[in-house]
């Protein structure tokens, strides 16, 4: 019985009924069975149909990832589970708000780097900036790392949202 032990990151999109407790069900599943959550986002996507979309970045061996998907599909309010990492090409984005405080050269430097990363300034005082930056997780990590020596005081990140490339929708692929 060959067991593949390589641990990979997977981005999983879950379409759920927007009902009370649905997020607790998903999170409880992960904590109860010892799966990892690297990032999790959730918001209503269709008010008429009362649907929410949860995007989870998780990690595990191929056997664990398959289990996670099967366990998610077992939840009653779940309509569809899609593993965007292997089900086809997809795009992923994350947004971060990054607060940097400082004066003089450090303050100028932070603005210069923000420009390189195409981060926007949302708020400014004489000794601080709040940047908004959008990109994949790696880009956000790099930006935050660069801001650390320049007076990073606060970070707020949305977690990853993702969607498949091409014309298909998550709902269309319903089994």
């Amino acid at each position, binding site marked *: 019985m060959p067991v593949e032990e390589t641990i990979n990151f997977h981005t999983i999109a879950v379409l759920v009924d927007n009902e009370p407790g649905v997020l*607790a069900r998903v999170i409880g599943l992960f904590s109860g069975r010892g799966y990892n959550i690297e990032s999790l986002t959730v918001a209503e996507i269709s008010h008429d149909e009362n649907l929410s979309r949860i995007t989870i970045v998780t990690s595990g061996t191929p056997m664990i990832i398959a289990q996670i998907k099967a366990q998610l599909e077992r939840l009653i309010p779940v309509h569809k589970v899609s593993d965007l990492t292997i089900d086809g090409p997809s795009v992923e984005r994350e947004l971060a708000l990054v607060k940097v405080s400082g004066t003089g050269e450090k303050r100028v430097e932070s603005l210069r780097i923000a420009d390189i990363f195409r981060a926007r300034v949302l708020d400014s005082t004489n000794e601080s900036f709040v940047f908004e930056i959008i990109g994949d997780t790696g880009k956000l990590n790099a930006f935050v790392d660069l801001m650390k020596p320049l007076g990073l005081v606060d970070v707020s990140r949305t977690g990853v949202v993702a969607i498949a490339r091409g014309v298909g929708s998550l709902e269309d692929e319903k089994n």
Partner: protein
Amino acid sequence: MADNQMQGSEILMQALKDQGVTKIFGYPGGAVLPLYDAMHQQNAIQHILVRQEGGAVHAAEGYARSTGKVGVVLVTSGPGATNAVTGLTDALMDSIPLVCITGQVPTHLIGNDAFQEADTTGITRPCTKHNYLVKDVNDLARVIHEAFYVAASGRPGPVVIDLPKDVSMGFGTYLPPEKVKRKSYAPRLKGDPKEIKKAVALMAKAKKPIFYCGGGIINSGPKASELLTTLVRSTGYPCTLTLMGLGAYPASDPQFLGMLGMHGTYEANLAMHECDVMVCVGARFDDRITGLLSEFSPNSKKIHIDIDPSSINKNVTVDVPIVGDVGQVLEDMIKVWETSRAKPDQKALKAWWKQIDEWRAKDCLKFVQKGKVIKPQYAIQRLYEATKNLDDVFITTEVGQHQMWAAQFYGFEKPNHWLTSGGLGTMGYGMPAALGVQVAHPDALVIDIAGESSILMNIQEMSTISQYRLPVKVFILNNLYMGMIRQWQELLHGGRYAECYMDSLPDFQMLAESFGAVGLKCEKPEDLDGMIDEMLKTDNAVIADVRVDPMENCFPMIPSGNAHNVMLLGPEDEADKPISEEGMVLV
């Protein structure tokens, strides 16, 4: 009233009636008073008043498991709901369909730490298949009908409906069941024909095949057991059953190898280890079955039929997964097997059976009944002999040595007649479960094979048994110890018997009498048959206190941490096969 306008409590009663419910197990409380009031004013549904909510859930499990219907529980908020948690978890682990209605404080008090308030949906989320908090009385009918659908379909399980008092007292619209459709959750019932063909091809080529079957067959309904029997007989292959699967295949059939797993037979476990094709039907490769995972059946191709996709490849990687209802898949499989005119290799099969017969010759369940002390195995064997020709016999058990001996020595020919707490291992399950069985089958013989320790965990339900004049027979193998604990302490902890001796036991005969039941006692082997006869003759409930050898251990056994072909066959084996430290960590 016009336009199906009803009070919430009436909606509940109407919905239950429309779902075909005739019995509810429950216990009243402040938050469910309106529901009890509505119940009081109708006759279609009988309420069975238990003595503790935990008993209600096990009774509903017994009712459900023995009928194939959904068991229904009604308890109050707070402690009523928390007392139900063990039973709900038990039902989840053993895939028993239940709907449990819990009262809740009125919606405007939720979150205020009100009297008898508990976060019931929060507490029961991980121990139910699904749960609901109904905040609008107009949702109530839909939720109830949906709950029955969810509980019974796919892999069955318990569903909780938390019902605030203001909702059960408010007025709303009733919806009949046919108007309710769930958009998500549609379990797959039909197996993939391609995979079924692949499975049959693999089975036909097998030289050392085995059927390994479990509780999924029972859950699929009696027809699945018939189909399994047909398929197993037409192949001529050996068949073993899990603890939860007993009865799915007739125990008296020569192709039956007995139960497998930790206390399964030598031949079943060895055949599982040595086989080249394993057909797993409605079982889940539980740790009690596999033993040390890395050495589990190393040379076999594995076919796995299960309705729950998450059971597939969870513990053991399989070669041919088939997701579907085992009944439907078996039906398709038999068709393919017949049309393909599969001809198993008879020479190989003969050699395989010869090998199996050699393992059988070990006679791994042998025990010696001599002297003045009753061996527990002998007690079950005599009980089996006395009851095997009776029409309708249901056996429930508690948890421990007596449970394993019952599984080993009582033969089940039909599904739904064996009820035991397999997954969760809940002591105290057996008597309330027997109560539930007897409510569903008033004329059947229902026996709870119990231990003296387990029985005390829900002894209060004797009062329920007495109130409803249920002639349940409680057959206690009294060895004065939590026997399985003592056995493991001998095996793993140098025989230091920490807290496993059951001191100050009640006089079970007098206890029975105090509940209005009949108390019997037996201490000598020669008196056993007589006592069993007397028990069976009694119309009333009976507690039979059978004093058995306090030091007898349950064999054969796969010691924890060992591969499933490493078995202790008796006490003389223990010294040769010491248990590793990793094994000690396992339960």
